[in-house]
């Protein structure tokens, strides 16, 4: 009986303890809480200081793409040329499990290239393939390849013409193109004859090529690297006891894939440079007011940057500048916090003030007072675009970087 009574009391307690939420439209000020959410918007015009730029984070050969461009400008022409080297099989090739034969040469070869970025507005896009010295390496410069890019042309392909062919296949040259619309890629397959694809056994069959492009307008494309990089399918003649036999070994990928370009980027000066190749970063050190850090919630923060010169780059290749926090302030070698980032799109030629919403980053500063209050600006895709922008630094009083912060004061909880 006692247990039943206790159970009854318990059941009543449980049922009665339920509480629903009460949500009613406010009728202010008569029937509203006395405390209100107070929003403050402030412009920090002099809080950014000790800003600086550094270049050299990613070099051309470290880029995920090979950039090709030919864009005449007012003073100079931006000329980007992919270069790649494909090592061969050596001087001999296995014929059977026991026998090898000397490679006599190549009947032909098929070069596959991935065009991973192009402007569909480009017209009459032409691609010229040059044979380069097999000695090219990561340190090869544009100037060192002027001669081979002048006298070693092996093939010319008009991509627009090829795309217009039935089946996108040129029956005369043997070239073809596949349009991967899902991934926005073109897969070029170029047939190289014996003259264009010379397998020289004494060089172990190593070949190097360079690409120049031209178009009526907007000649700027990017070729893939790695899994989407150049590959060469050789069709070889191999000596088998005095008799030449045909062999089709597996396709070979590029051991070196890079690009050279001119003109080189302008040296770092007092402006805040972001982008380009090799890529440049800028650091902005911020004096973060205690009143915002300690007793408020940041709901929006915007970084304003005024370009010192029009953004450079190929007109079709707008690029993204991102702002990130750093884990520690070690200047140029500050480790970047990859967790959060805010960004803004930069259009080459534009001189408009760039606004980057950095709310996430400043909220992180407010939440963790041990974090350095440093903003790092870098291109989102490092060394994958020629684009570069330079902003006025904090020394330029009239155009210095500024932060606009909208924050909420602490709600007066507990006030009657």
């Amino acid at each position: 009986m006692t247990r039943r009574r206790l159970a009854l009391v318990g059941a009543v307690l449980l049922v009665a303890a339920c509480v629903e939420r009460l949500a009613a439209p406010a009728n202010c000020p008569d029937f509203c809480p006395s405390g209100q959410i107070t929003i403050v918007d402030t412009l920090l015009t002099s809080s950014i200081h000790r800003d600086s730029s550094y270049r050299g984070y990613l070099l051309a050969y470290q880029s995920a793409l090979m950039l090709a461009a030919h864009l005449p400008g007012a003073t100079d022409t931006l000329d980007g040329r992919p270069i790649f080297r494909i090592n061969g099989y050596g001087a001999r090739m296995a014929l059977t499990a026991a026998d090898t034969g000397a490679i006599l040469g190549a009947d032909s070869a098929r070069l596959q290239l991935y065009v991973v970025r192009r402007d569909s507005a480009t017209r009459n896009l032409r691609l010229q393939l040059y044979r380069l010295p097999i000695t090219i390496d990561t340190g090869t410069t544009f100037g060192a390849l002027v001669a081979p890019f002048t006298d070693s042309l092996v093939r010319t392909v008009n991509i627009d013409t090829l795309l217009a062919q039935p089946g996108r296949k040129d029956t005369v040259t043997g070239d073809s193109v596949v349009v991967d619309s899902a991934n926005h890629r073109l897969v070029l397959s170029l047939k190289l004859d014996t003259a264009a694809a010379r397998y020289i056994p004494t060089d172990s069959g190593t070949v190097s090529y360079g690409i120049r492009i031209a178009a009526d307008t907007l000649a700027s494309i990017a070729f893939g690297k790695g899994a989407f990089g150049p590959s060469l399918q050789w069709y070889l003649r191999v000596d088998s006891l005095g008799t030449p036999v045909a062999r089709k070994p597996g396709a070979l990928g590029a051991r070196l894939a890079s690009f050279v370009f001119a003109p080189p980027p302008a040296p770092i000066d007092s402006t805040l440079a972001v982008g380009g190749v090799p890529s440049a970063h800028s650091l902005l050190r911020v004096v973060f007011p205690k009143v915002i850090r300690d007793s408020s919630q940041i709901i929006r923060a915007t970084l304003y940057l005024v370009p010192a010169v029009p953004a450079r780059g190929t007109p079709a290749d707008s690029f993204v500048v991102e702002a990130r926090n750093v884990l520690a302030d070690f200047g140029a070698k500050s480790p970047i916090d990859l967790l959060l980032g805010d960004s803004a799109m930069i259009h080459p030629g534009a001189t408009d003030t760039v606004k980057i919403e950095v709310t996430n980053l400043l909220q992180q500063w407010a939440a963790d007072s041990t974090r350095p209050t440093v903003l790092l600006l870098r291109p989102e895709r490092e060394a994958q675009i020629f684009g570069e922008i330079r902003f006025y630094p904090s020394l330029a009083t009239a155009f210095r970087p500024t932060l606009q912060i909208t924050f909420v004061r602490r709600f007066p909880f507990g006030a009657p």
Partner: protein
Amino acid sequence: MTHRTGWTIALLLVGPALTGGAIAAAQDSQFGIRGLGTPGRWESVRSRSTGGAFGPFDPLSPLMEAPLADLGQLTATAAGYTSNRDVVVGGTTTPLRTTRFPLMGVAGPVAPRLVVGVGFTTYLDRSWDVILRDSFMLRGVLERYTDAIASDGSVADVRVAAASRLSRRIAIGAGLHLLAGSTRMTAERRFDDSTFSRVQQAAEVRYDGFGLSGSVLIGVAPGLSIAAWARSDNRLRGKVADTVSAVTDLPRMAGGGILFAPSPNARVAASVAWRAWSRAGAGAFDTWNWSAGMEFGPRRMPIRLGARGGQMPFGPGTTAPTEAAGSLGTGRAFAQGRALIDVGLERLERSGGGLTERVWTVLVGLTVRP
């Protein structure tokens, strides 16, 4: 049931309040948002079913201590309310619903002529949630937003009371009141423009205070009793993260009642109470409240009727909001009177400052006499 089991039930009932974990909240009101809160009603379901008129004479209502003197055995009680409230303002009606657990107590004789009771009831309910649509200029653009400001919690009145019947006609009582509780407050703002992050702030506000009360119950004649009580609370201190956010003076209050029982099956009562809430500051008013009610029929299953009226302590403008209510109820005794279930229904209307609240409240109470 053993004496030990009885105190076990008592601890079950009162323990949560003493540890601060109980949700002790009473009927909410928009009139409490601007002020300290909505004062609780210190009445059992039986008293409330009579409009509160029986409160000064009901040993299970925490209004007065003196009636405890007539408790002959250990008794525990608890009450639960469910309210459906329509808030009418500016021609718009918003339906709201709450379920509360505002009253628990246990009392029993500990010595000849001495009865002790402990329990808690709601002193101030501070549960509300308001939603506001508005806009303002921010960064040169008209930004629209929705605010949701909510408070969930209450200030409980934990009472330790003692009462003694000095003679056949006179009983007296006194109580010590510890005011304790907390509210979980949140303030949230969502901008229509998603470039602004959502504002979300929260804090727990803890309250404490102290009060003393005394009461007397006099049997004037057979079937006729009068009661009087007085209480003084010092101040309510609010703390946020151990920092005092507000100190508000609490009211002194007094009241009385009269009970007439012409026959064993009929009882009529009336009561009045005055509370000096204006001490709490601007927007607070002294209040008068009255009630009248009757209970007829056998005690095993009586019928109760009541009405009450008066003022609310907090509201806009220069005059206190008013309230009026009618109620009815009944009860049923089980197990040779060892368990009682009381049920009631109350219709309440509050108005003031252009706002009207109409509330239906279902009351359920359980009393156990082990």
